[in-house]
Every structure is written in structure tokens, then in C-alpha cells.
């Protein structure tokens, strides 16, 4: 398999950037990256492949607009107008992936879970329009490693945690599998929506091959730092351009804040769980009181019922928090780590260029040797890296904004929902009790 090397501005793949559908240009309400092709429990739905025909390249951007393209790529931080222009059309998306249907496999050696990976596409890089394969976590991990190796200048989305403590977490519990599957689905969708990564041949293999022939001799890269060594060794960076400095600082603060939020959220879950325990007992005391009363039996049972309803609503809220809120936080912490590593690699690339340049300049001063080719190559490499990184950064920021908007609004909605359920329960109780009061009053006055 050929390893894709970054070549100039063609980091957008075979197509000019205006024709690459941006994953985030989808409607606001949808979860990034873009409209999901979720195979709902109700049945299969075919995604709309209305404008898939753009693949064959109608009206590519003319060469003269390349400079315009360049300036657009040099994004001023988060300019809304630029973002809108850069990430235009939704309908041009032509690769849809989904991860679902977890199943347990038991063999003599081990037990593991596989997931169904479904693909629908009109791209010519794929032989068939549809694919359906089963993959396990190991396979996703393989894909990610391969992507990192072959696209070192790109930001690869994170995978959910690989190792789980066997005693502490049940790897086969419905909840764990569900959470993991959602994260894998997100991962794959992000890759599929990335204008460069989605054309990686390893992705293709992952999505289509019956049996994934992973090179067994592949060393498990547990630390990202390993790959950095391949790029350049021992060059010292002179001065980091300010925009990359800013990125680094942002990432540090950001991941710190995420960590804090995670801790707070976990604390809240604990407090809520203890509250729930007490609340349940509270309900049962009302019930047992009702047993020794006549007139008050119904009101007391009513209160017990309301409290129980609130318990149920609270359980749902807590579940949502741990299944929807926390995973996203954690995913972004991983994402931040990945991004920081890419920044480091970029630094290396710059360091290498600077080092070689300096050496070459010195030599030229001595004996007028022309600038060696490697130095130019290095410069190219560095500039591509910078450009790729900036583009990925933009994309990532956009993703992040959408994801967190979703997240926070989602949490607000869930909380609103919880209080609404409680309110409804109490309101209906009040109605019932006040009706009885009116009855009593009228019978008294009669």
C-alpha cells in the first residue's frame, strides 16, 4: 500500500478544496461531524446521495483561484465569514459510515466484541457502493495507528480508551459496550468526513476488506512520541511562530478545564446517587404511613408516588450524564493530547528545516555550494505541515464548538426535562387533592 505523502497544497486530496464537502456544514442541530446515517432501531434508512456525482469533478476550481484559496487557508482566527465560505456544501458528501450492532464472540482463546461497520459511498476509490464488515476494537486501533503513520501532519481523531481494568469495569456490560460503540462511531465518522484522511487507503481497507490483514509485526505504539523520532532527530527549534504557540497554550488550558469539569461532573453523579438513595427511603416512609391512615391514605400514597416518580426521573438524568456528557469530555481530552502531539511533530519538522538550512548556509559561505535539494524539501515539508495543521485546527475548533454547544444544550435540556417530569407529577397530585377538598367543602356546607 502506498503511503500518502503530503504534496504541496494538494493536501485536500484529489479534489480542489471547494469541492470537498465540509463535515460541519451540516445543519446546526446535528451532532458533528455532520448528519449521521444512524441505522435506527426502526429499520434501515438509505442516506441521501443526491449530489454524489460531484465526485467526477465537474467544474474544478481554476488555477487562478489558487491564491485566493491560499489566503482563505491562512485563516484569521475563527472568522465566521471565512468559516462559512470554506465549508460550503452539505450535499456533496459521498461517504457515509456507521458503527452499530455489537455482538459477542466467544472462542477458545478469547472473548471479544465485534461491531458492524457499514459503508455507503459513490466514490470511485471504492469498488462497490455498499459494504458491511465486522470489526473489533483492535481493528480500529490498527486503523488509527496506520493513519498516524501515514498522515503525520494531520490531526487524527481519538479512540475511546483501550485498556480497562478487568476487575473494575465489565467489558461486556451493555452500558460499556454502548458507550464504546458510540465513541467508535464518532471516530470513524470524523475520519470519513476529513478531506484528507478519508482518502487514506488504510481506511479503505478497513471499510471493505473481508479479513483485515494487519501486519503482525507492527510494533504497538503506545506512546505518540515514538513516531516523532521518525520525522527528525535531535534538532532544536529556534522560534515557534506565535500562532502555534497560541495553539499550544490554548490546548493546555483547555484540557485542564475539561479535566476540572470531568471531576465536577463525577462528583455531581456521586451526590445525586446518594440523594437518590435517601429519596427512595423517603418515598417508602410515606407509603408505610399511608398504611395506618384512613382519610390521609390517598394523599400520602400520592406523595409517595410523586417522590418515586422523581426518583425515576433522577435516575434517567444521571444515566444521561454518565453516558452522554462524560464521554464527550473525555474524548476531547484525548483529542487535545493528539493535537499537542501533532504540534510537537510540527515543531520537529521546523527544527529539522532550520537545522539543515543553517548547515547549508554555513557551507555556502565556505565554498559556494548551492542550496541542497533536501533543504528545499524540508522547507516544503514544513510549510505543508503548517498549512495542514492550520486547516485541521480550524476544523477541530469548529467541531469542538459544535460538539460543546450540543453538549451543554443537551445537558440543559435533560435537566429541564427532569424538572418538568417532577413538576408534572406534583401538579397532578395537587389537582387530585384539591378536588377532594372541594368535594369535602361542598358536602360540609350542604
Amino acid at each position, binding site marked *: 500500500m502506498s503511503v500518502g505523502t503530503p504534496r504541496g497544497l494538494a493536501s485536500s486530496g484529489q479534489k480542489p478544496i471547494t469541492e470537498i464537502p465540509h463535515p460541519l456544514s451540516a445543519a446546526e442541530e446535528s451532532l458533528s461531524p455532520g448528519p449521521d446515517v444512524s441505522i435506527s432501531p426502526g429499520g434501515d434508512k438509505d442516506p441521501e446521495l443526491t449530489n454524489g456525482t460531484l465526485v467526477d469533478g465537474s467544474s474544478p476550481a481554476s488555477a487562478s483561484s489558487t491564491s485566493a484559496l491560499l489566503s482563505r487557508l491562512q485563516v484569521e482566527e475563527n472568522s465566521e465569514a471565512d468559516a462559512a465560505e470554506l465549508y460550503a456544501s452539505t450535499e456533496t458528501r459521498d461517504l457515509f459510515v456507521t458503527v452499530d450492532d455489537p455482538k459477542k464472540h466467544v472462542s477458545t482463546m478469547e472473548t471479544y466484541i465485534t461491531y458492524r461497520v457499514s459503508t455507503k459511498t459513490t466514490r470511485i476509490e471504492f469498488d462497490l457502493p455498499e459494504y458491511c464488515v465486522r470489526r473489533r476494537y483492535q481493528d480500529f486501533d490498527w486503523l488509527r495507528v496506520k493513519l498516524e503513520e501515514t498522515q503525520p501532519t494531520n490531526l487524527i481523531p481519538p479512540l475511546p480508551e483501550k485498556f480497562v481494568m478487568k476487575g473494575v469495569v465489565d467489558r461486556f456490560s451493555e452500558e460499556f459496550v454502548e458507550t464504546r460503540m458510540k465513541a467508535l462511531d464518532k471516530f470513524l465518522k470524523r475520519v470519513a468526513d476529513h478531506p484528507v484522511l478519508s482518502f487514506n487507503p488504510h481506511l479503505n481497507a478497513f471499510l471493505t476488506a473481508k479479513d483485515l490483514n494487519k501486519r503482525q509485526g507492527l510494533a504497538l505504539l503506545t506512546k505518540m512520541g515514538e513516531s516523532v523520532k521518525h520525522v527528525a532527530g535531535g534538532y532544536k527549534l529556534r522560534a515557534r511562530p506565535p500562532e502555534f504557540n497560541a495553539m499550544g497554550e490554548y490546548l493546555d*488550558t483547555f484540557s485542564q478545564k475539561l479535566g476540572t469539569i470531568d471531576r465536577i461532573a463525577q462528583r455531581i453523579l456521586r451526590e445525586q446517587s*446518594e440523594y437518590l438513595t435517601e429519596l427512595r427511603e423517603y418515598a417508602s416512609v410515606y407509603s408505610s404511613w399511608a398504611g395506618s391512615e384512613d*382519610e390521609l391514605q390517598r394523599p400520602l400514597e400520592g406523595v409517595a408516588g410523586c417522590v418515586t416518580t422523581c426518583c425515576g426521573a433522577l435516575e434517567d438524568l444521571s444515566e444521561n450524564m454518565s453516558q452522554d456528557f462524560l464521554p464527550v469530555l473525555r474524548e476531547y481530552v484525548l483529542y487535545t493530547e493528539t493535537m499537542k502531539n501533532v504540534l510537537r511533530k510540527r515543531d520537529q519538522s521546523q527544527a529539522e528545516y532550520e537545522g539543515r538550512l543553517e548547515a547549508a548556509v554555513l557551507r555556502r559561505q565556505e565554498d559556494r555550494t548551492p542550496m541542497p535539494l533536501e533543504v528545499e524539501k524540508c522547507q516544503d515539508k514544513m510549510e505543508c505541515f503548517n498549512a495542514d495543521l492550520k486547516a485541521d485546527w480550524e476544523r477541530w475548533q469548529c467541531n469542538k464548538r459544535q460538539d460543546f*454547544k450540543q453538549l*451543554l444544550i443537551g445537558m440543559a435540556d435533560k435537566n429541564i426535562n427532569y424538572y418538568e417530569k417532577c413538576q408534572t407529577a406534583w*401538579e397532578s397530585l395537587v389537582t387530585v387533592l384539591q378536588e377532594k*377538598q372541594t368535594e369535602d367543602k361542598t358536602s360540609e*356546607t350542604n
Partner: protein
Amino acid sequence: MIMADSGSSEEVAVIGNTDITSTESENNIINTMVERGTSLLKKMEINVAEAEKRTGKNTVNMQETYTVYLIEIRPAESVTEGGTPAAPDTLWRRYSEFELLRTYLLVTYPFIIIPPLPEKRAEFVWHKLSADNLDPDFVERRRVGLENFLLRVASHHVLSNDKIFFLFLTEEKGWREAVLDTGFQDKVDSRLKSVSAMLRVKNPDKRFTALKQYSDELNTVVSQLLRVRARVADRLYGVYKVHGNYGRVFSEWSAIEREMGDGLQSAGHHMDTYAASIDDILEEEEHYADQLKEYLFYTDAVRSVCKKHELMQYELEMASQDLAYKKQQKEELVTGTVRVFSLKGMTSKLFGSETQEQRESRLSAIEQSIEEGVEAVMEKNTECRDFVSAAWEDIERFKEQKDKDLREALISYAIMQISMCKKVWPSTLFRTSFCFQYKH
């Protein structure tokens, strides 16, 4: 919105209105007391208006700090439409004086379920609530409880006519003397007597037995409820306050964001508001706890009445037994048979029979005794019957009052929960402000 036709406007105003506060609902209970009240309440308005700290020397000549409460009495007609009410007559009382009054009432009217006083010491507290008697919140809640006590007594058709009670409300200085002068302390039944009665009564009245059992059950379950409620309050407090931590981190996070910044700030502010809202919520819930506590303490009063009845029943049985024994004795004397062992009879058998004179004098003594005995039994019987009828009347009244009050309390509790749900996540407010400020 729940809208039902409210009945007479003078009746409890809670119908159809879910927006009333719990204090309003409590006032509704008080209004009912006044409505159905006695002539006393129709003549005067009673308030426990204020509380003040005093220091003074106590009985062992040591300095102590205590709280006094201001009782205000106003003639009922003095509050005219649009006019300012006339100045009230006032006097100060401390908690121990209320206790003395209550003890007097307990002894003087043993067939009445005497309304309870608010608790002497703060119990069933959750961590933030102070257990200190001088804490202003505790004093305030006690003030309300004392007013409630006075109103309950004043609206009771028997108790409201009591002279000592009247003096309590009107005579600051001379009252203590007046109470002690009644000699009520002599009428207090000894503990020993009560316990014996409980253990040895042969024909307990089934109704009273059932009532005592119910009262014990109620006591247990309400205690439990109050305990669990305090724990629930504690936990809920924790949940809300931890959310407050979000406020700061969102604020810090917003500093490094551009588009998201405003949205995060607003989210942070809402978290702070949310976390702060719990204090008021839980304070209001204390009113509910106080309503439950009143009935918890009422169970003690019910128990007292049952015990008094037991005692009376026991005394009646003892008197009957005594009479029966005396009659036996007479019979033996008359017929010469010894059925019941008596020392005298034995000795006279052993040491020779007695003279006719002796015999006759003994007979008349016994007959006299029997007469007295019959009277005693009749008296006790009447006493018992009167007690039962008076007590049962009050018990029925109490049951009705309890059902009504507790139902009101539950309704107001539900209304409190509703208002809490409404204020907490001002849904549209938070969501829209977050959306609008969050530029994507």
C-alpha cells in the same frame, strides 16, 4: 394552570391556586382555626409578634441569656376597613412560662388532647441548620410555633374558657402566682400509678387501645419521616452546591474562547444561580417539617389521654374489686362460712368464737364499708363514663383536625415542590440566552 372554582371566599383560599407559598398555606390552617373558633377568638386577635434576648439572674442566681416572646392581644372589632388597628395590649413571656401553662392544662383537662408546644431543642436537623437555641432562625420558627399553640388553645371550645389561659394572655406579672395557686401540681398522677395501671388493667376499652396503638404508630412513622427528610435535605444541598463549582470553571474556560465565550459565561452564571437557590428552598421546607413536628408532638398528648383513661379504668376496677371483696366478707360473716381467708376469721376459729356483740359490730362496720364502697364505685363509674364521653368527643375533633391539617400540609408541600421545579432551570431563559450568546 389549575383553576377550580373557589368556594366561599372566607374559606380556605388554597383552592385552585398553586402559587401560594407554604406560609400562606399555614395561615390557611390558622384562618380555619379562627373561622371555627370560639367566642374567645371572635373577641380577640392573638399574635406572637416578636422575640427578644434578655439576660437575667436565674433561680440559682447565675447569669443566663434567654429569649422572650411578645404576645399581642387586640380586640377583634378594632381592625376596621382601611383604618389603622388599635394599639394592642402586650406582654412578654418566655418559653418556660408556656411550658407551665401547658402542664397546668394537661393536669386540669386530662380528657382533652392538649396542643403541643414547639420543640424545646432543635431536633431532626440537617447539617446546615443550627441546633443552637439562640440561633435566629430557630427563634423565629419557635415564635411561629408558640403563636400556633396559643391559637389552637384559643380555638378549643373547652380550653378557651379557662381563666388561667386568659390570665396568661393578659396578666404579665401576677400570672405565675395564679397558676400555682390553683394547686394543680397536687393533681399530677404519679408515674408509678400510671405504670401499674398500664400493666394491670383487666378490661381495657378497645377503642382506647386502638387509639394508643395508632398514636404510637404515628409517632414512629413521623419521626422516621422527619429523620429521612433531614437526610434528603442534606443530600440535595450537596448536589446543588457542587453545581456551583461549574460556575468558576466555565468562567475560566470562557476566557480562552472567542465565539463560545459569551455562551459559557452565561452557562456559568446560571450554575451559580442554581447553586445559590437551594438555601431558600430548604428554608421554606422547614415550615413543612414544623407542621409534621406539631403532629409528632400531638401524639404525646394523645398518649396522655389514653394513659389517663387507663388509670381511671384501673381505679374503677380496683374499687369494684374492693367492693366485691367486702361483700364476700359480709356474706361469710352472715352465713358463718369462710370462703375468703381472713386472719380475724381464722383467729376467732382457733381461739374461740366471738361474742354476739362483737359480731354485730363487725357486721355494721362492714356494711358501712360496703356503703362507702358502693358510693366509691358509683363515683368512679360516673367519672370514668364522663371522662370517656368527653375524651372521645375531643378525640373525634382531633382526628378531623389532624386529617384536615395534614392534608393541607401535604398540598402545600407539593406546591413547594412545584415552585422549586419552576424556578430552578428557568428553562427558556437559560437555553435561549445560551443559544443566542453562543456564536457558532
